[in-house]
């Protein structure tokens, strides 16, 4: 592969991972002032901060981080549709966290072990994400194996988000990982957590039916445009503004 081609695939991968981290960070930040208890508000904000740090490192390898975050149109974002899904109730947020943090933990562990362009960040972030995954797993157990309402809401959330989980295991150019192996490990882990939480493992399809693709191809769900409008509004209204 020639040098410019190598750079191009590294860019594709950095955008995919950077956008996942950025968009989920923003979604989690939306809980500020709304979380059910103060401890969770702080926890979700801290997880968001970890993700924002990862996004900054990744996007800075592609270009100017602010321009990429605030001035790109919806179709230019390469994040998974899973991470852009609205927070919903607390159970929805936890189900999204469970699905994504399990994937991200497996992904960073593989990238950290390989000697590719993401090894440095991955070795660092894998330790942070281990705590995100633990947080999501413990909450899944508590809600699933808790009250009737908690169980019912957690089940509804896990089922609703199931169709966004297949996209995580598409091959991404420039990522030296084994998607099929990761998918097997992911399914095994998530199934074990859901079983222990007395929840039923959803059965429906794990990908959408759009032939145009999904988030990695720049095809997003309806709520993403509204999220971007809010995220980008200040920067677009006051270009170059600073504190």
């Amino acid at each position, binding site marked *: 592969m020639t040098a410019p081609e190598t750079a191009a695939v590294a860019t594709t991968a950095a955008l995919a991972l950077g956008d996942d981290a950025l968009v989920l960070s923003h979604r989690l930040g939306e809980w500020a002032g709304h979380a059910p208890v103060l401890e969770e508000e702080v926890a979700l904000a801290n997880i968001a*901060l970890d993700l924002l740090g990862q996004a*900054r490192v990744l996007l800075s390898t592609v270009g100017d981080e602010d321009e990429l975050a605030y001035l790109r149109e919806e179709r230019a974002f390469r994040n998974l549709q899973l991470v852009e899904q609205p927070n919903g109730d607390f159970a929805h947020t936890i189900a999204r966290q469970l699905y994504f943090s399990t994937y991200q933990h497996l992904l960073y562990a593989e990238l950290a072990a390989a000697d590719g362009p993401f090894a440095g960040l991955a070795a660092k972030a*894998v330790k942070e994400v281990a705590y995100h995954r633990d*947080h999501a797993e413990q909450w899944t157990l508590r809600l699933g194996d808790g009250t009737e309402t908690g169980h019912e809401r957690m089940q509804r959330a896990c089922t609703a988000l199931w169709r966004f989980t297949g996209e995580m295991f598409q091959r991404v150019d420039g990522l030296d990982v084994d998607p099929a192996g990761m998918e097997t490990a992911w399914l095994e882990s998530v199934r074990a957590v859901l079983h222990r939480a007395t929840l039923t493992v959803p059965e429906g399809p794990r990908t959408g039916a759009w032939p145009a693709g999904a988030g990695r191809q720049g095809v997003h769900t309806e709520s993403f445009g509204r999220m971007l409008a809010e995220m980008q509004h200040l920067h677009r209204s006051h270009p170059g503004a600073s504190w």
Partner: protein
Amino acid sequence: MVTTTTALESELLEIAGSVPDPELPVLTLQELGVLRAVHVRGADSVEVELTPTYTGCPAIEAMSLDIERVLHAHGMRDVTVRTVLRPAWSTDDITAEGRRKLRAFGIAPPREQEASGPVSVSLGPTRTLEPLHCPHCGSTDTELLSRFSSTACKALRRCLSCREPFDHFKEL
């Protein structure tokens, strides 16, 4: 690659290392273990390598500015602080003195992980580390209130003996 550290570099490393951490001012950057190297590039030009605790830790910017300030004051005209990610920082990089100061400040220090390997995730008890001690009364009878406390690097716990809540600097 063989790198040698000059007397001037050692001196500048010590000065930069004496800067207090902006979030936990009881610790210096040297005790926190985030200062990796100082390279003198010219008569009054120096490059400092700093590593973040967490990738998203906002304190890194304040640390960089503080390092620039003390080195400027020491006669260095041109100071560049570079952020390095490899090798990843670990709580094992906090010095023994740093741990002692954290405990005295009311924060349970992170436990040594060297023997237990990287952070692992599993349901139930996750790691076999030595028990955690309450920084106030020393009891090991404590409970977790929240995995994330005032900052991402800390968890909030409560001592069941003296009933005091306390922060625990999580192992990373």
